[in-house]
């Protein structure tokens, strides 16, 4: 399956419809770069297979198409990935899926608008939500009082995409806490600081660059559908940190099962709030050396039942 790079415009003209004085100019949006294109290549390599062999497991009766699929991208920036996947699912994959509802999430309101514009440019219609990862989403089972704690809970998300801020801060900064700061336009110093934080969209991954990704993994473990997949981009030391934390967690609970014989695969057992949940498998799909960095995209998912 071919995924074409979506059209996008790097023009700064974004109309902001914020009348509450929160912004008087648009904060910068992270422009598509090598990491974005690596994610696109992963979709080209892996998406068709995932739709055909995993997501189609939910097909009921005679129906031979899966879906509608709920697709969510975190930190959508320009919206390249959302536009590409939305187009692929309504286009080349339409014989396998009945369609998709795509939601792009970003903390930066300009990025939300950019995403909508990029999608329009490519003839696809998506919704954008200004929010912090998946904190705005309804939790599965919250309205069900007869919840069985031993029953695995699944969420609604079929495909989750995240190209997170993966770089260590120069001083090992923690990820900036997401918040809305009311900015007094007379207070230039404060305003500059806010812009600086928003500009550094690629920074702030915490000491290992994975703080934000780990928060996303906790939420994703509860919100992925049974056969859902989470594509996440990591730099080499992000993955090392995930492996280190997993090993530590197993030692802490005297789990004898400490091994991993394949450097491209690890079972993550510490994410999610339901003790009944199966661990998530994290598998490397594609990696690439770019100047000074080694990037890889992983697919994170629950193993299929083989019984």
């Amino acid at each position, binding site marked *: 399956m071919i995924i074409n790079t979506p059209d996008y415009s790097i023009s700064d003209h974004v*109309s*902001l*419809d*914020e*009348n*509450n004085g929160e912004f008087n100019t648009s904060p910068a949006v992270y422009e598509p770069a090598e990491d974005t294109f690596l994610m696109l290549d992963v979709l080209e390599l892996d998406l068709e297979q995932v739709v055909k062999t995993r997501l189609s497991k939910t097909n009921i009766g005679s*129906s031979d*198409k899966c*879906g*509608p699929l*709920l697709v969510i991208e975190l930190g959508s920036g320009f919206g390249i990935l959302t536009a590409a996947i939305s187009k692929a699912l309504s286009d080349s994959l339409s014989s396998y899926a*009945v*369609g998709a*509802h795509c*939601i792009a999430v970003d*903390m930066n*309101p300009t990025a*939300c*608008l950019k995403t*909508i514009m990029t999608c329009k440019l490519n003839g696809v*219609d998506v*919704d*954008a*939500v*200004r*929010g*912090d990862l998946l*904190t*705005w*989403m*309804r*939790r599965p089972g*919250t*309205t069900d009082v007869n919840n069985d704690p031993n029953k695995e809970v699944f969420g*609604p998300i079929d495909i989750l995409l995240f190209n997170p801020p993966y770089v260590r801060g120069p001083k090992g900064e923690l990820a900036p*806490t*997401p*918040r*809305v700061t009311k900015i007094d336009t007379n207070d230039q110093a404060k305003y500059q600081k806010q812009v600086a934080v928003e500009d550094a969209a690629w920074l702030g991954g915490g000491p290992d660059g994975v703080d934000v990704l780990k928060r996303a993994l906790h939420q994703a473990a509860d919100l992925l559908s049974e056969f859902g997949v989470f594509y996440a981009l990591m730099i080499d030391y992000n993955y090392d940190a995930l492996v280190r934390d997993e090993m530590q967690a197993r030692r802490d609970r005297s789990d004898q099962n400490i091994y991993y014989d394949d450097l491209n695969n690890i079972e993550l057992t510490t994410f999610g709030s339901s003790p009944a949940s199966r661990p998530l498998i994290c598998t490397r799909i594609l990696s690439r050396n770019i100047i000074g960095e080694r990037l890889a995209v992983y697919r994170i998912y629950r193993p299929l039942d083989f019984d």
Partner: protein
Amino acid sequence: MKLLTHNLLSSKSLKGVKVGYPLRIVAKDVKISECEFNKEFVKKIIPKLDWKVFVNAAVEIGQTSDLSDELIEDYEDDDDYLKKVHHLLMEVEIINGELICPETDRVFPISAGIPNLLLNENEVS
């Protein structure tokens, strides 16, 4: 923002909120834009929806429809019914307005079609 997205939103992350669902809607501007009726999509999205929340949301934003609180049984073969659902789910868009937490009345503004669900640091549970 479409009602399909509203069906997934919650204010559960606010401090002290137990369920935070559904968010009430106050719509100031609503836009209707036609899109192709995909029967299979609508048929298969219905079981995934919180139906009552969807029907109430449509009423809240002033889209009078004769959809009742109870989903009819044989909707799969009822094209007129599916088209109504399609219209409300996919073609009606809230451009400006507010979402309101059912427990705390915290307001989340919707502007340019984008709901702002970011919380302040001191609001997070």
